[in-house]
């Protein structure tokens, strides 16, 4: 009856989550309906920096559909505190971040007041009835300018707007610079972007006065973190709070954090005793949901005549925006600086990072988070060196990449787990037929057509965060992941995971791995996630940690189950435990495979005991908390081919190849999907996407009309390929594949464009490489020529 399934790990299994999503049955937060729901809308500051002198809500309060209006003062009076920061650094300045601004608004979009009304439309109507008297103050947008004497102060607690300074040194960079055959100095700007999930944020808060139970349905990637931060912000007992992240329409990092709006929704639900729903508009998302990147970096690179890169000195100003978003201090520090070796030998590195407050939307992790900034810098660096030496960029990479290794101690901090960088580089060059491509480029140049070939050789860090490593690097905590695997009496299995899927497909990939582990059908495994009342305390999904940390926790719980099931099987088979073999869903006596019981029979015995001795505990369920011993480091080489029209500056992406090594792959179809989406995210930054403020801090890209999202007609189909170097850090050998595409593609595309422009002598253009920027760079180069 029960047939052993074929091996599921490595198979392209269709996703279990899809039937509900392709039929319109998704449970996205705005789809949830509760009787008596009231609607929340937030009044946001139109000024980047202003003193709030007076708020008069009297006209809003008498609107017939309005139930309540709240200000920052109301929340404070009721004991609602500041949103805590989740990743501390030495000497970090921690000005408060109240859910609604008190005294001062600090960016365009800062919440100033809240309205709750009977319906959505009335809530927005009432916003316009609230009169706020602002005293506009000088604002600062540029993070480098913000540190200069006399710049407007965003917070009194942070002199010169510096929130933290972070530095790391390996070797002797000054000596490398002094002894170099050549040095390139370059300022590069990794501009501000928006994660822009297609679903904006949303929340529904429910409160039961009789029991004190507070339930928050929320678009987020990590319900337990939200619950913890909410408990701390609201001074409310954690065990009375339940946070549910149902179907979530994409996160890309922007849904990791506890935001002010969600706190206000909970507060309003408690005040009114009614369900309160808040749904962000896209225009609000672009103001009020964290942005990403935004680094100004100066670097100096030392190199030898043969292309060996010997030293890198980096100074980065990282824009934090107006408040510290909960993980913001982690991103331009631990996820950036220690990755400044990339896949290269590069012995001497020194880096200094300033985290700076400005009057802009807070900046935190968005897809890639820190590693795209490091990779972009390094890959531009390699190409600039190649240009100086008149060498092929592929040769400079060949010269500098590390030899294959296991457990390589980088000079700065991390121990890379496993890697074979020459293999992915060579594979990529072979698949694009690099020599032919260069030949083609030469031929077309003669015809006045400008093709560019861009390489990106990357390594990134995922699987955050091994506590011991993190703490040894100066962090105040590490991250783990949890799982409960529950085998039911019929042998069906539920996996409760602290990871959360919002597109990644864990309901399928986790089920694949666990079904394989138990030798049962994937249909018999259900994955439950996203509900603090259902799952063990878990830390959620970001930084490509779900497979290496979350799935590993489930796998370890599975191993514990097999251990116990083996004991039960031994009793059922009346054999010694040591003689029991478990294979293909059957326990049998070594050497006598016909003496067997199935996984399902053992499960039944665990709950309907007939032969289990009294000293063996009943039930078949295990919990595991996996605290990894190290991070894991995916890597690869991407190649972009573009054509640039020198008359218009228009860039056309002709071809894109991704060769990645993300360790062992559970579902190649899903990993390919992650790569495609990630690559386009990075291409978006390279060519189109940018959050733009004017000097007064007005947001000029406040809708999707102005913020240029990548669209299908502007993109080609992609070629993907993979090598598999297993990670030694976890038993499955997996590494995480959610961000490699984004990390690799931005520099590949920019390098390709600058390669196309090489005949014109253009060495660097800051992103996004819009026709206007490319055209201006060409004009400038021609002017000089």
């Amino acid at each position, binding site marked *: 009856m029960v047939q052993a399934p074929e091996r599921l790990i490595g198979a392209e299994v*269709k*996703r279990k*989550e*899809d*039937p509900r*999503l*392709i*039929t*319109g*049955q*998704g449970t*996205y937060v*705005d*789809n949830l*309906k509760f009787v008596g729901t009231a609607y929340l809308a937030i009044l946001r500051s139109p000024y980047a920096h202003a003193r709030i002198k007076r708020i008069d809500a009297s006209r809003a309060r008498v609107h017939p559909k309005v139930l309540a209006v709240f200000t920052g003062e109301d929340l404070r009076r009721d004991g609602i505190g500041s949103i805590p920061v989740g990743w501390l650094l030495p000497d970090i300045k921690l000005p408060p971040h109240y859910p609604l601004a008190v005294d001062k608004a600090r960016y365009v979009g800062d919440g100033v007041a809240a309205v709750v009304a009977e319906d*959505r*439309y009335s809530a927005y109507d009432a916003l316009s009835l609230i009169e706020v008297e602002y005293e506009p103050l000088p604002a600062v947008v540029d993070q480098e300018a913000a540190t200069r004497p006399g710049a407007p102060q965003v917070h009194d607690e942070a002199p010169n707007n510096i929130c933290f300074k972070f530095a790391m040194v390996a070797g002797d960079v000054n000596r490398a610079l002094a002894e170099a055959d050549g040095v390139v100095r370059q300022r590069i700007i990794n501009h501000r972007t928006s994660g*822009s*999930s*297609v*679903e*904006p944020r949303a929340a529904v808060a429910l409160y039961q006065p009789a029991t004190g139970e507070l339930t928050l349905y929320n678009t987020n990637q990590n319900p337990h973190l939200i619950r913890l931060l909410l408990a701390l912000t609201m001074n409310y007992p954690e065990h009375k709070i339940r946070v549910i992240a149902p*179907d*979530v*329409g*994409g996160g*890309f990092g922007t849904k990791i954090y506890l935001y002010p709006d969600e706190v206000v929704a909970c507060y309003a639900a408690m005040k009114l005793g009614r369900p309160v729903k808040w749904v962000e*508009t*896209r*225009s609000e998302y672009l103001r009020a949901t964290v942005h990403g990147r935004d680094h100004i970096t100066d670097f100096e690179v030392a190199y030898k005549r043969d292309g060996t890169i010997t030293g890198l000195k980096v100074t980065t100003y990282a824009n934090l925006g107006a408040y510290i978003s909960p993980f913001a201090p982690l991103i331009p520090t631990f996820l950036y600086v220690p990755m400044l070796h990339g896949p290269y030998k590069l012995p001497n590195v020194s880096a200094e990072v300033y985290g700076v407050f400005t009057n802009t939307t807070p900046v935190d992790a968005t897809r890639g988070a820190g590693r795209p900034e490091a990779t972009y810098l390094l890959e531009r660096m390699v190409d600039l060196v190649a240009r100086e030496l008149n060498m092929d960029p592929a040769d400079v990479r060949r010269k500098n990449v590390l030899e294959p290794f296991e457990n390589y101690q980088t000079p700065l901090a991390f121990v890379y787990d496993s890697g074979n960088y020459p293999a992915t580089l060579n594979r990529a060059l072979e698949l694009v037929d690099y020599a032919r491509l260069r030949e083609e480029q030469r031929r077309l140049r003669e015809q006045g057509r400008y093709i560019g070939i861009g390489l990106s050789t990357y390594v990134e860090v995922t699987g955050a965060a091994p506590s011991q490593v993190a703490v040894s690097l100066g962090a105040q905590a590490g991250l783990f992941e949890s799982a409960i695997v529950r085998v039911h009496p019929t042998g069906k299995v539920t996996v409760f995971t602290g990871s959360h899927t*919002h*597109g*990644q*497909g864990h309901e399928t990939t986790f089920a694949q791995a666990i079904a394989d582990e138990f030798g049962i059908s994937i249909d018999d495994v259900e994955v439950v996630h996203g509900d603090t009342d259902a799952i063990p305390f878990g830390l959620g999904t970001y930084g490509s940690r779900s497979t290496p940390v979350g799935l590993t926790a489930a796998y370890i719980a599975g191993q514990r189950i097999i251990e116990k099931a083996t004991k039960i099987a031994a009793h059922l088979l009346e054999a010694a435990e040591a003689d029991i073999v478990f294979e293909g869903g059957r326990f049998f006596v070594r050497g006598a495979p016909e003496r067997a019981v199935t996984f399902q029979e053992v499960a039944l015995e665990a709950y309907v005991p007939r032969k289990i001795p009294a000293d063996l505990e009943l039930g078949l369920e295990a919990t595991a908390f996996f605290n990894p011993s190290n991070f894991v480091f995916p890597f690869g080489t991407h190649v972009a081919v573009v054509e640039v029209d020198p008359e218009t500056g228009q860039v056309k992406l002709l071809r894109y190849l991704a060769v990645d090594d993300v360790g062992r792959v559970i579902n190649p*179809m*899903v990993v*390919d*999907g992650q790569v*495609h*989406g*990630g*690559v*386009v*995210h990075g291409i978006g930054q390279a060519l189109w996407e940018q959050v733009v403020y004017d000097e007064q801090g007005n947001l000029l890209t406040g*809708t*999707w*009309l102005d913020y240029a*999202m*990548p*669209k*299908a*007609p502007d*993109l080609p*189909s*992609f070629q993907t390929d993979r090598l598999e170097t297993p990670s030694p850090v976890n038993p499955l050998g997996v590494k995480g594949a959610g961000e490699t*595409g984004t990390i690799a593609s931005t520099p590949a595309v920019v390098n390709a464009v600058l390669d196309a422009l090489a005949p014109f002598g253009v060495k660097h253009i800051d992103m996004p490489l819009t026709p206007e920027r490319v055209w201006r760079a060409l004009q400038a180069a021609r002017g000089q020529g």
Partner: protein
Amino acid sequence: MARVSIRINGVLHEADVEPRLLLVHFIRDVAGLTGTNIGCDTSQCGACTVIMNGRAAKSCTFLAVQCDGAEILTIEGLAKDGQLHPIQQAFWEKHGLQCGYCTPGMIMTAYHFLQMNPNPTEEEIRHALEGNICRCTGYHNIVKAIQYAAELMRGGAPAPTPAD
């Protein structure tokens, strides 16, 4: 308040609505069909795409009162008798969705497009998706899914897949 009656997936929905009520809110809140999503407020994303009187339409760009008497098909009305529509099946098989939020709009856009152009090239498909934003898939597998759906719809369809 204005009286409107709109037929959605074959069912007539009549209600008194504010003249400013968006069609997408009529579909989601009045008719209770939440499969049609909202991703923006400037008609860019196409998450709200439905078929209105036979044509793909962004339901956030219409007022409900403009659509009095209209026939609308939403994602919920696509599977018939428990059988997925070939476009749904193709999205499933080709991994044409990740978070699924853009998916109803993508599928409805493809539904209209494939009626107009049953045998499209990749370029034509990409052009047809100009008004639909997806952040997850990079469009690669959406294009593949629509190509495959076209193939299924032209015949030679493999055995249909149950809707659930």
